[in-house]
């Protein structure tokens, strides 16, 4: 009896111990789905308290004393990235202009971005004569961009290499590499912006802080001009010098951004969840799948939309050094499966805006495939916001998308409505 009790007790102890002894680490496990939601909650990259603090910085309305302007577009990141939650999209557009001389695109004096606002009426930017290339650009979603940043550049290059074979040679996404500011200009596969101007979220934050809000910072220390005329500190239009030492390292010049808000912006975007699917999504992530959405999803792939609007991409493993060595993929963002419905490559689908930024003249009439995740939150679509209904926006695709659109045209009205229902569930 005693021996029996003793044996039972030892077995009980062993049962307690075994799970601990054989539990392995998360390293080496398979890729998992990235968290999704429009819920203002962290994806795990930072604590909720840090996320909330960074969101406050992202939503902060800056004024002239903080460095706003002299020319700018908005007072806050969240003015353009807000619907339905901070970090997402809005209907707000920016204006770009320049001139095509028959061979090359030439920037408008002061750069292709025409800032819509100024702190003084005398320096308001306007499109000058002779700059016949003009376009609007809608504000992009930043939710889930931390996962996008953690896609290995080689993954994007591989997608580009595969496209001609998938499309009979009609589709060939252009992969470009752009400088990473925080890595001394090291090149990396571009993925952010309508023209794929940026590869890292810190570089993107720095660029936007200067160009959209007029606040110089560690990586962009020179104010924008007004139609080519200097309006920075010393001109009489800008009371804030561009030489504040960084709070974290006084030896470094942080321009008008001593608190390094750009770091908070990047951290906020890295911590956002990917957009959540709508009710009835075919993947079952939001209730029971709607049969019409399931059918539309299948059609989306069958007719070729998914060649560019790539459905699933897995991020680089945790611990991978990216952004020219300036960022290590954290566990919260590494080895995650995302469904951006984009290849993050440049294509000519007949809607090109004629503007050249980081990609060279060959990209003049190309645009990055916009990720369709969260597209149901938009009423105005395409780069210029001119698409007011889904069918018309699909039909605007031409060029590389010609064959795919011909497949779409061959669908029945029922099938087209199913495909559109699928789009409206994204």
């Amino acid at each position, binding site marked *: 009896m*005693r021996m029996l009790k003793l044996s039972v*007790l*030892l077995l009980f*102890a*062993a049962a307690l*111990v*075994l799970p601990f*002894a054989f539990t392995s680490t998360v390293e080496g496990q398979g890729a998992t789905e990235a968290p999704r939601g429009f819920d203002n909650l962290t994806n795990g990259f930072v604590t909720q308290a840090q996320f909330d603090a960074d969101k406050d910085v992202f939503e902060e309305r800056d004024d002239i004393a903080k460095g706003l302007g002299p020319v700018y577009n908005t007072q806050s990141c969240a003015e353009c990235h807000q619907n339905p939650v901070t970090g997402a999209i809005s209907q707000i557009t920016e204006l770009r202009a320049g001139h095509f001389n028959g*061979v090359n695109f030439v920037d408008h004096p002061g750069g292709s971005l*025409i*800032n*819509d606002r100024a702190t003084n009426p005398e320096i308001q*930017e*306007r*499109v000058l004569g*002779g700059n*016949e*290339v*003009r*376009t*609007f650009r809608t504000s992009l979603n930043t939710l889930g961009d931390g996962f996008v940043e953690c896609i*290995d*550049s*080689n993954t994007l290059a591989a997608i580009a290499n595969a496209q001609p074979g998938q499309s009979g040679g009609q589709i060939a996404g*252009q*992969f470009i*590499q752009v400088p990473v500011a925080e890595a001394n200009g090291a*090149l990396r*596969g571009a993925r952010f912006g309508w023209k794929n101007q940026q590869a890292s979220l810190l570089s993107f934050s720095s660029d936007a802080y200067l160009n959209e809000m007029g606040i110089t910072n560690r990586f962009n220390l020179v104010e924008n001009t007004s139609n080519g005329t200097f309006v920075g500190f010393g001109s009489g239009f800008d009371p804030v010098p561009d030489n504040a030492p960084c709070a974290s390292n006084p030896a470094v010049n942080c321009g008008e951004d001593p608190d390094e808000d750009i770091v908070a912006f990047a951290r906020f975007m890295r911590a956002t969840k990917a957009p959540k699917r709508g009710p009835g999504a075919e993947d079952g992530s939001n209730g029971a799948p709607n049969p019409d959405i399931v059918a539309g999803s299948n059609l989306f792939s069958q007719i070729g939309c998914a060649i560019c609007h790539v459905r699933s991409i897995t991020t*680089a*493993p945790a*611990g*991978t*050094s*990216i952004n020219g*060595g300036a960022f*290590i993929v954290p566990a919260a963002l590494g080895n995650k499966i995302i469904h951006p419905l984009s290849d993050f490559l440049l294509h000519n689908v*007949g*809607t*090109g805006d004629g503007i050249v930024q980081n990609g*060279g*003249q*060959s990209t*003049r009439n190309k645009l990055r495939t916009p990720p369709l995740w969260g597209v149901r939150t938009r009423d105005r679509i*395409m780069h*210029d916001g*001119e*698409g*007011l*209904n889904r*069918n018309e926006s699909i*039909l*605007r695709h*031409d060029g590389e998308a*010609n064959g795919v*659109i*011909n497949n779409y*045209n061959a669908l029945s*009205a029922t099938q*087209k409505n199913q495909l559109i229902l699928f789009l409206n569930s994204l």
Partner: protein
Amino acid sequence: MFSRAKTLLLLGVTLVLLTVGCAKAPEPPRAVQPPPAEAVVPPATPTADVKPEPVAKLPPPTQDEVRGAVARIYKDAVVVDTNRFAVGDFNGDGSQDVAVVVTPAAGMLGEINSEVANWILEDPQKIVPPDSKKATQRLAPVPAPTRVAQSDVLLVVLHGHGPLGWRNPESRQTYLLKNATAGGIRSHQMTTLLKANSGKTALPKLRGDVISEKLGAEPGFLYYNGSKYVWYPSSRGAESIASK
């Protein structure tokens, strides 16, 4: 019953087992090494500048070709007026397009006005381009969806694809325009228009050739702005070409 000593011994053994089991096993010594880096992507082969190829010299269209091209997309939804058409590169992609006057076929209005039709239906006179002289402005209200009536005279613009242009069976992108034609349409090359208006700032941004005509008593032209066809009356300041 166990004696107290045995019970204590048993508890002690259990505690030791739990402690040993739960303790994290010592990690094997690791050599200090940098994290694996994203492999460097070889520089992309520079892509040649995308310059629109000059529109290939193509033979003049025949009425049958025009009728066939329209039927390829519209099937029997419209009736083609094969006497009134014009060709040019209206969207500026280097491929020849065709514009042709049509009328709705009897009983086909439901098809023509379908929200999932294979054409983009619009009224170029309702498209108000932004004022390029103003940096900040309220955009024009979005016009109500265009609806075709049986008595309407319409203009089909069929965008070409590749060297064969609108004759290419793969060319399907098309606009169906209401209030866009009174019948007499002509194609004018963009270069001609730019030359006639050299130094003037009133001209809109042109991507390609234009379709000139008179709507009512007013001359002007239709041009493609990248997403829509827009009516530009010459009274806005551009040198009239329709009257020449």
